[in-house]
């Protein structure tokens, strides 16, 4: 078990960590700052500054007066706030569970239960949909979901769905969005998980086999624990992206000529508040809520999984 732990620690998810261990003191050089500056400037201009500006907007009203928490109270009391956040919660739970379970299972199978040639063919196939840009992939799904034109209309009919409006019934929407997200996003993560599994030294698996562990035992007790940080990393990014759900419901809303609630997701609510009602302050308050949820979620995952402790002694 000692060997296992060492292995786990060696498996740093962030590349610089092992290097940092050996060279605790570094010479500060101009080149370093120069290389970092490009990203830092863009981050400040398009990441930090807009965030701070949203914070400012959320604490003021459209006359520039300080409102304290009143904007937050106002948007919580908005009749669209509760449903939007409930929708996104249902979606997130389904999406994260399905993403984590399926990508890990598929990666393990591709890594250890399949011939390398076939495995790379499958990885390529899984990855293809991810190469389509977001909007294009939603458009593809609009055709898939309309029984009138869908190539899988037989399947939809078998499910008792004969019209587009039946397919996009309100209770089916989270499932539809999970389908779209999985179809476009999971392929990339399967490739990443596969790479993580590749990092596990063969001796460890060998040792497990000698100790009598079958393929499923090896997967459950060795492979999956050893890539747990990658799983946490994937969960954080998928969680953050999931709370931002916008393009899918927005496009489906306009394609169905309004048969979807225009404020289905919190991001849509912020959009409607800002651009339809001119309430940029209320929209900023909604976005601060999303930021807080994303930070808390990431914080819990980072501390629980020890994601950033990898290089520490």
């Amino acid at each position, binding site marked *: 078990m000692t060997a296992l732990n060492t292995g786990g620690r060696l498996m740093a998810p962030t590349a610089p960590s092992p290097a940092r261990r050996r060279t605790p003191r570094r010479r500060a050089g101009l080149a370093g700052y120069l290389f970092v500056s490009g990203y830092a400037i863009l981050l400040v201009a398009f990441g930090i500054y807009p965030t701070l500006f949203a914070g400012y907007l959320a604490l003021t*009203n459209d*006359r520039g007066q300080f409102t304290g928490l009143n904007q937050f109270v106002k948007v919580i009391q908005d*009749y669209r706030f509760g449903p939007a956040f409930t929708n996104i919660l249902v979606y997130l739970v389904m999406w994260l569970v399905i993403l984590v379970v399926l990508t890990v299972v598929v990666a393990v199978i591709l890594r250890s239960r399949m011939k390398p040639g076939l495995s790379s063919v499958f990885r390529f196939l899984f990855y293809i949909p991810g190469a389509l840009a977001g909007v294009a992939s939603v458009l593809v799904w609009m055709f898939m979901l309309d029984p009138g034109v869908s190539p899988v209309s037989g399947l939809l009919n078998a499910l008792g769905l004969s019209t587009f409006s039946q397919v996009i*019934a309100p209770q089916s929407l989270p499932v539809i969005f999970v389908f779209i997200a999985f179809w476009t996003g999971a392929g990339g993560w399967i490739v990443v998980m596969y790479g993580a599994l590749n990092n596990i030294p063969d001796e460890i698996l060998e040792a497990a086999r000698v100790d009598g562990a079958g393929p499923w035992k090896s997967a459950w007790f060795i492979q999956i624990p050893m890539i747990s940080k990658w799983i946490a990393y994937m969960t954080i990014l998928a969680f953050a992206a999931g709370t931002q759900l916008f393009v899918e419901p927005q496009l489906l809303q306009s394609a169905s000529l*309004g048969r*979807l609630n225009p404020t289905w997701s919190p991001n849509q609510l912020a959009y409607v508040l800002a651009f339809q*009602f001119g309430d940029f302050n209320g929209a900023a308050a909604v976005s601060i809520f999303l930021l807080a949820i994303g930070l808390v979620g990431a914080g819990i995952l980072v501390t629980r999984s020890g994601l950033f402790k990898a290089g520490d002694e």
Partner: protein
Amino acid sequence: MKSPTVPQSGAPKRRVLRAALAIASLTAIVALAGCASATQSTSTGTAGFKKAAQNNSSTITVWADSTRLPAVQAYQTSHPNAKLNIVTYDGSADGSTYLQTKVQLFDRTGKGWPDVVFASPTDVTWASKATSPSAQAFAAPVDELVPSSTINNFAKGSLTPCQYNGHTYCLRNDIAQVVTWYNKTLFDKFGYTVPTTWEQYQALGAQVAKDHPGYVLGWVGDSNSQESYFWSSQCPAFDLVQPNTLRVALGSTDCTRMATLLDSMIANKSISTQASNNATFIKQTAPKVLMAVGPSWYGQYIFNLGFKTPAGQIAAANPMTWSGDTTAATGNVGGGVWMISSHSTNLKAATAITSWLTTSDANQGSAPTYPAYGPAAKTWLANPANSKYFAADVSGAFTTAANEVWTGWSNTKFSDATAWSSVVLPALTAGKTLTATLPAWQAAIVDEAKSVGYTVTTK
């Protein structure tokens, strides 16, 4: 990576606690401090229409939907000296808020406004007011730009959606009075007579369901079907009793009578719950459409272009009445408006094209929709191109219906399509009845109305 100040095991928790306390107390201070209200500024009227510096030779930008695009292009052809930048957009159809979204942004950046736009009457409710304290209302008062004789020639009531605070902020392009459409060929073949009352309509539905299953007398799945049916029923769903007081009373018998009628016809499948633009509907049901209750543009747009019904089959009859009612009432489905931007630097050119588009015989006489401008409507009806598709003369029905549009369905600050499309239609698809869905529809309208600042009464 051991740091000299190794925290003791309990320390991180304590630190978190301390931070939490600090945040909590800060929050309390912030919350308790005398804070300003979070409500948005209420926009004042448009007393200050300040013209931008004018330049009579500058290019003007015109936004039109794809249906009116040919009209704008025709203006360019007949006025080669006009400098136009023509942009196509969705024209605010089906509750789209594209124009509003863009103008909100232009108001913030202080530039980019189109000079002339085609839009829906709903857009005038926000365009006639400033979107923020520092902005100027987008729409220019056209009564200060065109002669009053022109304004007086528009069909009675057709400019009501344009009026606010004693000014007129748009010129109506077309009206879309609801008439009774029927397929004369099929009616003759089956030996039916065209119903003149809603009760006869319902009875015919039962008859058709029995004799010719599969044939329909209409559909309710469009984002504007509520305007064809509930507006015609004089249902007080969007009734502005005062400028800022909206009456939403879907429990009224004027609403329930239509819901009950439609429910019985949906149940026996003589009315479809699908949308008329749905591929399956066009393929399977469109050839079996016996009747439709819908606006004047149904003839060309739905039957001719959408369903590809051959010429010489479709005809229009007067709006139906309820037996016992002395006056007929009908709905209105859309009908666009043209607005001129108050920020335009070439109001002269903008006014010229707007006048030409809305009032000239050259444009409106052959327009795809029924003109709102009185003299142009006469030309339109006399134009054989507008009637040759039909099996019988439609001008009688059109003229009658134009004068019977019920005025109790107001032009509100929010689209009447949103709640219908996102609440009622999914419920119908799930098999619920309209009668059972009226409370949910009512609640959705009330929520929307309150969120844009209306006082709501439900009695």
